[in-house]
C-alpha cells in the first residue's frame, strides 16, 4: 500500500499543531478557524463533485439549514445546542435524501439546475420567515456549551476545528480507498461500466450527496456557534458557488486540494479588500484565470508538474 497518502495527513497535523504558536494576532486566528471550517465542508463536497463526478450548486442551502437550526432551536425553543445541531443535520439528511432520488436520475446541467433551485428555495425561505430567522438581518446564536464549559475563546475553537479537520481528512482518505470509494470513482469514470459490474449507481450518488449535505449542515452549525451570528448570506447562491470554486481550484478528486482550495479562497477576499471597489472584478478574474490555466486545479496540476502523482 502507498504510504505517501497518509504522509500528507501527518504534515497537516504537524502544521495544525504549530500554527497557533506562530499566528501573530486574533485576526489571523479567526482566519485560520474559518479556513479549517471551510476545508471540512469542501472535503465533503469534493467527495461528491471530484470523486463521484456529480455537481451541486446548492450546498450553501444545506449549510444554512444547519446554521439556522443551531440559531433558531435553542433561541426560540430552548433546545440544547448539540441537540439542535443534530436535528439540523438530520433534517438536512432527510431533505437531501428525499430530493436526491429524482435528482440523480438527471445528468450534468439538469442536475446543476435542480441543486441550484433547491439551494435558492432554502435561502428565500430563510429570508422570508423573519419571525423565526430575523429575515435578511440575521439573528444571534447562543454559544455552544461542551461538557460543562462554554466554547467562547478562539483558542478553544481552533483546537475543535483542527481536530474536526484532521478526522475528516483521515476519514476521506479511508473512504476513497475502499470498496465504497472505488464504486464512487468508477461511476464517475464510466456509469455504464460500473452498473455492469453491479454498482447501483443511483444509490451511490444519493448516499454521497446525503453525506456531503450532512457534512455541510454540521459545519453550518459550527460556523453559527463560532461566529455567534447568522445571516442568510451563509446560504445564498454565491456562497454555493464559492464552495464549488474551492473544490475546483484546489483540485477535483484531491483530498489535499480541498484544503488548499478552502485556504486560498477564504484568504482571497481579505487579500482583495485592499483593491477597494475592485474586489468583485478581481475575484471574477482570478476564478477565470485559474480555470483557464489550471483546469484540473492547483494540487493535481502541481503534482503532475513535479511528477509524483497524488
Amino acid at each position, binding site marked *: 500500500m502507498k504510504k505517501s497518502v497518509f504522509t500528507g495527513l501527518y504534515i497537516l497535523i504537524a502544521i495544525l499543531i504549530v500554527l497557533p504558536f506562530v499566528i501573530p494576532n486574533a485576526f489571523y486566528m479567526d482566519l485560520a478557524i474559518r479556513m479549517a471550517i471551510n476545508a471540512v465542508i469542501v472535503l465533503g463536497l469534493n467527495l461528491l*463533485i471530484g470523486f463521484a463526478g456529480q*455537481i451541486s*450548486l446548492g450546498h450553501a442551502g444545506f449549510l444554512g439549514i444547519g446554521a439556522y437550526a443551531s440559531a433558531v432551536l435553542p433561541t426560540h425553543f430552548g433546545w440544547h445546542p448539540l441537540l439542535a445541531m443534530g436535528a439540523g443535520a438530520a433534517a438536512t439528511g432527510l431533505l437531501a435524501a428525499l*430530493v436526491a432520488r*429524482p*435528482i440523480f*436520475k*438527471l445528468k*450534468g*446541467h*439538469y442536475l*446543476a*439546475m*435542480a441543486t*441550484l*433551485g*433547491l439551494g*435558492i*428555495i432554502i435561502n*428565500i*425561505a430563510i429570508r*422570508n420567515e423573519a419571525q423565526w430567522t430575523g429575515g435578511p438581518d440575521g439573528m444571534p446564536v447562543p454559544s455552544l456549551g461542551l461538557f460543562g464549559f462554554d466554547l467562547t475563546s478562539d483558542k478553544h475553537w481552533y483546537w475543535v476545528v483542527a481536530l474536526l479537520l484532521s478526522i475528516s481528512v483521515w476519514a476521506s482518505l479511508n473512504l476513497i480507498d475502499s470498496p465504497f470509494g472505488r464504486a464512487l470513482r468508477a461511476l464517475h469514470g464510466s456509469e*455504464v461500466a460500473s452498473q455492469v459490474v453491479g454498482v447501483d449507481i443511483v444509490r451511490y450518488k444519493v448516499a454521497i450527496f446525503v453525506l456531503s449535505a450532512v457534512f455541510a449542515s454540521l459545519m453550518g452549525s459550527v460556523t453559527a456557534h463560532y461566529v455567534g451570528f447568522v445571516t442568510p448570506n451563509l446560504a445564498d*447562491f*454565491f456562497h454555493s*458557488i464559492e464552495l*464549488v*470554486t474551492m*473544490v*475546483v481550484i484546489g483540485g*477535483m478528486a484531491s483530498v489535499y486540494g480541498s484544503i488548499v482550495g478552502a485556504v486560498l479562497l477564504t484568504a482571497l477576499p481579505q487579500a482583495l479588500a485592499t483593491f477597494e*471597489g*475592485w*474586489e*468583485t*472584478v*478581481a*475575484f*471574477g*478574474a*482570478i*476564478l*477565470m484565470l485559474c*480555470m*483557464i490555466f489550471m*483546469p484540473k486545479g492547483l494540487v493535481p496540476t502541481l503534482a503532475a508538474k513535479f511528477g509524483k502523482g497524488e
Partner: protein
Amino acid sequence: MLAQFLQFLFSGVTVGATYALAALGFTLIYNASNVINFAQGEFIMLGGMLAVFFTMSGLPLPVALALAIIVPAIVGVLVEKLAIEPVKGAETVTLIIITIGASLVIRGLVQVWLGKNTHSLPAFSGDEPIHILGATLLPQSLWVLGVTALVVIALWYFFNRTLQGKAMLATSFNRTAAELVGINTSWVLFMSFAMSAALGALGGILVTPITLTSYDVGIMLGLKGFVAAVVGGLGNGLGAVVGGLLVGVLEAMGAGYISSSYKDAIPFVLILFILFFMPRGLFGGKSTDRV
C-alpha cells in the same frame, strides 16, 4: 376577479418575455458549445444599464439603444474568445466556474464605472396605461411583447431559411459532421455568443422602463432565464420561449394569489417539479446512451 387575473397575466407575460429572450440566449450558446453561460443575466443587466448611461450622456435614443445592444454583443464575443475557446472540452464544473467568473467581472466593472444606484429609462411611448376589461396594460409591455415576437420570428427565419442559420443548427446536432461538410464551427461559436448577448441586452433594455435596473439585477434574471430554458427542455428554441412565458406568468400569479414574498422562489419550485416528473423538460426528447 377577471380584472385581477388579467392584471397578473399582463405583468407575467411582460416579464416572461424577458425570461424568454434570456432563455433563447442560453439555448443558442448551449447548442453551439454545450456550455451553460451563467453570465447570460449580466448581458440583460448590461443592456439596461448601458441604455440608461448612453441616453443620460446625451446620445439620441435610437443611437443609445443600438450601442446598448452592440457593446454587450462585443462583450459576449470577448468572453467566448478569451475564456471559453481556450478551454474547449473542459469539465462542466470548470466551464460553469469560468462563466460565473465572467459574470463577476462584468458586474464588478459596471459597479465601478456606473455606480451602485438604481436607474430607470423613460418608457418608449409614454406612461398612459391602456385599460382592458378593468386591468391596465402599460404601453411599454406592448413594446416588450411586440419586439420579442419579432425577434422570435426573425430567429425562426434565420435558422430555417438562411444558410448561416442552418450551419449553426447543423453544428448543434453534430459538430464533427458539421466540420466535415465545411462549416466553420468557430464562427458558429462566435455568432452564438454575439447573438445571445444581444438578445439578453435587448430584453434588459425593453424591460428597464417597467422594472428598473442596477448593477446587480443580472443574477436573478439570468437564473430565471436558465430555469426557463430547462423548463422547455435545454437546447429547444421553441421550448425556451414557452418556458420563459410560463415562468413569467406563474411567477406573477404566484406573487398575486399566494405570496409576494415567495415570488422569486416560484420559478425554482416549478423547475424542481418539472425535473422530478419530466426529467428532460417539457419538450426535451428521450435520449439513449450509446455504448
